[in-house]
């Protein structure tokens, strides 16, 4: 099992995989394969969360608003905006979830590796931006809810 041909390699000792190295090898394989799925699953979960947050937020607004209270157009925009931002976050996650159109040649390993890396990077970018937008919407919704709580009960009424 000793190498003699190469100038650089002094010796080679081959053996079956040790249990530790076998476990590491399996972990590496799992990391490589699942790195694509993790981003995709996150985007999928966040599409549901973002779009689900819209009716929850609107329901909360309806619950918190004093009865028969009529919003001014400016209030309506400010209080309604978080729902639109949730929708935007949902759209960003949806774009991240769907695969891009690429031609993969299975015999070119470098191509597969490049496409895999690009896909992981792309999902990561969309997941990050989607989460930033979702976080902004959450923050905005909390502030808006706090503002609604402080609204006077005897606000502008329908004439």
């Amino acid at each position, binding site marked *: 099992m000793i*190498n003699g041909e*190469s100038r*650089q*390699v*002094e010796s*080679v*000792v081959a053996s*079956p*995989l040790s249990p530790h190295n076998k476990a590491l090898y399996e972990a590496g394989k799992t990391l490589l394969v699942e790195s694509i799925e993790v981003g995709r699953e996150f985007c999928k979960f966040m599409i549901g969360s973002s779009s689900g947050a819209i009716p929850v937020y609107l329901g909360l607004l309806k619950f918190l608003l004093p009865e028969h209270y009529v919003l001014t157009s400016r209030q309506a925009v400010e209080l309604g905006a978080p729902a639109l931002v949730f929708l935007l976050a949902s759209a960003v996650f949806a774009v991240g979830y769907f695969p891009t159109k690429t031609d993969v040649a299975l015999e070119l390993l470098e191509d597969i590796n490049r496409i895999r890396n690009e896909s992981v990077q792309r999902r990561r970018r969309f997941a990050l931006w989607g989460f930033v937008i979702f976080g902004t919407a959450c923050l905005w919704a909390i502030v808006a809810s706090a503002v609604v709580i402080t609204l006077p009960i005897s606000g502008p009424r329908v004439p």
Partner: protein
Amino acid sequence: MSQSSESLINISVCPLCGLRHTYALAVKRSIVLESLRSFSIETTLPRRFTRLFTCPTKDETFQADITLTDTSSDRIESVTVTGLAPDES
């Protein structure tokens, strides 16, 4: 600055099938700038790397400890198994 070179290594007795296999190995080395001294003694340092190989007969993985040499003019950065040697694949 670094340079890459290819080496062939022989596994004369595969631990899985008992046959002889030859693999291509990419070795990346970083160049150490020579000192200003006019005379210097070349020193070498053996370095051991464990890499995984796939047996072409059984399509299973085994490991091999490879010993390479660092010299005073270059240092090994990475050792990658690129696959079976062209004549074997």
